[in-house]
């Protein structure tokens, strides 16, 4: 099993928004999906998942409804609001820019060492 990474500050919100963008989903499923998709690299501490969800909901980026699941139990399903979609786009763009810039710098220093 590869070592797990800590998430950089603020990334959790972005990841949550991305997962929720795929369709209404409850908290447990978000945790599962983050873990699966990242092939267990991103281990979201479940203790910080819920405060993050509530924060995004209170900021109006997510909305939530209580709906029955496949097994017939009521769960709180989160979905993206219009504001959430806009936030996701701008956050994604800025993340890409950052990642690209960091990549450039890393390549540069690798070149310098040769």
């Amino acid at each position: 099993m590869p070592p797990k990474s800590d998430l950089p500050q603020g990334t959790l919100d972005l990841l949550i928004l991305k997962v929720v963008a795929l369709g209404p989903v409850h908290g447990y499923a978000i945790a599962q999906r983050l873990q699966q998709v990242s092939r267990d690299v991103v281990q979201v501490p479940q203790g910080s998942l819920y405060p993050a969800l509530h924060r995004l909901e209170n900021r109006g980026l997510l909305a939530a409804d209580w709906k029955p699941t496949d097994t017939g139990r009521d769960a709180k399903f989160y979905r993206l609001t219009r504001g959430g979609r806009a936030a996701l786009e701008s956050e994604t763009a800025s993340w890409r820019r950052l990642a690209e810039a960091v990549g450039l710098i890393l390549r540069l220093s690798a070149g310098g060492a040769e």
Partner: protein
Amino acid sequence: MTWLRRLLNRDRLEVQLDRELQFHVQQQEAELVARGVDPVEARRQARLALGGPEQVKEGCRDARGTRWLDDLTQDVRYAVRMFVGRPGFTAVAVATLALGIGATTLMFTVIEGVLLKPLAYPDPGRLVTLIEQTDWSNNFGNRWSFAYPNYQDCVRTTRSLTLDAWRFNGGTVTGSGDPEYVNGLQVDPGFLGMLGIAIDRGRTFLDEDSRAGALPVAIVSADLWARRQGSREAPLGSPLVFDSTPYTVIGVTSMNARLPGRPDIVTLLGNPESDPRGLLRNRNVHPGVQVWGRLRPGATVEQAQAELTLVGRRLAEQYPDSNRGRTFIASPLRPNVGDVGATLWLLLAAVALVLLIACANIGSLVLARAVSRERELAMRAALGAGRGRLMRQCLTETAVLGLAGGLSGVGLAKVGVAPFIAFWPGTLPRADDIVIDWRVLVFAVVASLTSSLIFGLAPALRVPARHLDRVLHAAGRAIRGGSRRLHSVFVAAEIALAIVLLVCAGALGRALLRLTALDAGFIVHNVLVARTAVSPTALADPSRTRAAWDGVLAAARTVPGVEAVAAVDTVPMRAGYNQNVYWTSASLPPIAERPGAIMTSVTPEYARVMGLRIRFGRFFDDHDRAGSEPVIIVDDILAQTAFGRPDVVGRQLWLPDLGPGSFRIVGVVGHVRHWGLASDDQAAVRAQIYYPFAQLPDPLVRRWSQLMSIVVRTGVPPGTLVESLRHAIRGSTSDQVMYQVQTLEDLAAASLARQRFLLLLFGAFAALALLLASLGLYGVLAYLMSERTPEIGVRLALGARAADVTRMVLGESAGMVLVGLCVGVAGAMAASRALQQFVDGVHGVDLPTYAVVMAVLSASALAASIVPARRACRVDAMTALRQD
């Protein structure tokens, strides 16, 4: 969901949160079981994965943003519980604060009502007042009332203003019932409407009412109407005789408090064409006409001013004789409150100092508590409470204390406003506008919170952050240097503030002592002063007016107990004066360079009534009549300034306002402090000239007659003669009245009323400050010593004597007092300079005052230190050591 809804739906959100987390755990558990994990183990793992459910919930609650409010409620509850548990401390702190904040709020209420609030007219910001200004000025300054034709030109040519003129016009009301003198106004028809003054019964003035030939109409106050007609509801239309003219009353309203001069009767300025003496047609006279205006919609004061400047320039070209160098100035209409502002601000500053002392006092109490609570706080910090959270809690506690004090303070202020107004020397202007409104409440809340920050910040900053173990081990025993220093700062501040107040009180006291010992220039005992109106019918021609005055004086002389009677236009130390220019030769200098003097028109017995000291020559006698040589008497100040020598009998003066030609000086009398005991030294014009009423030029007699008073020297207490005098002077038509009856003694006392009032209040505040500072010193010393009991025990066990311990305690106290003294004296110097500037008669503070203040303060400090010191030496060494 909005913040507010999150706040209100807290309970539902909690249930949902619980369900959401439960769902998560059960989901995970189910999945683990499906993968073949033992159910008990699965539950354990699922729970572990989520982490502590309470921590997760706290995180989610934080996300709601309503957290601080929950904390606040919790802190407030905790604070209230704690204060209830310590009733002694709480009562002392709240009472001290209530006094401080109450007094400050009371002063602010008064200041707000008298100085800050706009006038109680609709849209007061658009009202302006106009004056005439000249490009030269003399002793009278260069502010003029309006010449009526100038006012009419302004009305005709300005587009941005509606203007209305008015002037004071008191007079005698006769007819049924006793004649009485009432305040009155003469106005333009639109004046009351411009100010938004509604007429309760009847109608307001119409333009037709001031047409030539219209019947004279009046609007009267409800009070006057009730007085004259027997009831407020008496029908309108009945005539009222005012200054011997019958007026038809067309309206009754309660208006006194809202108009200048608190008039009981308002009549019309009338048509200038029908003005018998033509004063309103003459551009050269300024018969006291004031002009107020309202800006038309959209117009600004600047536009109005530009228009007025143009009018002024045009009139100056057209009428150079009267209008050269004369312009018209519009400025926003402000309440006329005279000079009460300085007194009020001084008092606010004084009570603010008392409040600061109270804060320092409570501050050291709170600090002592904070030190003893250090362990509790350290324990909570060790258990994970954040420092910010603990500080917030400490500040919440002091804020609760502050608001409790503030609330009681507002109650005190509400109770105190009426006595304060009643206690004010004379009448406080705009007293009706003084009410506790939302601005006052905001002020009280801000004052409370600021106070609690002052006394709560230092203790809150002491919330431990590091070395918790040491604090916990110290067991609240050893008191650290930091807290001791803070305590000393509080005590030193209290002492410094107390000194400032004591020195101010001392300066006022000395000023009052000096001023009361001053020679007024006349003998104040047993003199009655009363404004007097002769029969209005006698005003028709000057000789009848003069005869009427002779009659009044003769009648007054017949009253048993009266020693001498005179008539005079302006009485010393009472409002009102008449200033004219004089010169020592016939070739007058330019108008701006002519010196001025106070002119007093008197009858011959005036010198006897007042007890004037005749230095040279004689006073007037019955031979100084109309037609005989014009004579005057001057005071020693005029003799010195005009001629540079004391004896100027036989010299001549030229008085252009009184007539052409010269006036011969027949006597020199001692200076009379016309402007009051305190203010005379600072007055711009002090020189005095007396001239015989009998020689007053005929055209002035009618006007003067309306201003004259009688002064009566009595052989018995003057108050006992008022009724018989009133009866004696009524005259054959029984319409001659005395009003505003005062004694000269009262006037002299009133001229120092401001100083006396300030001294009394400053004295009270200083005493309170001294008491608070002494209590503060006592409290801190007692506390420090009780903290040091073990140390003292060790000292005693090692052989220190009682005297050594006493010396140690007194040394501690002396250190704090000394710092306070030094800072206080510096502050007092600044404060006494301010006092000197605002209160007439206060000079710089002298050494004896400082010496007395220091002595008083040191004595109280010693008294406050003795008990703790003696308690310290009675410490039993063994008990003290076992205490640990």
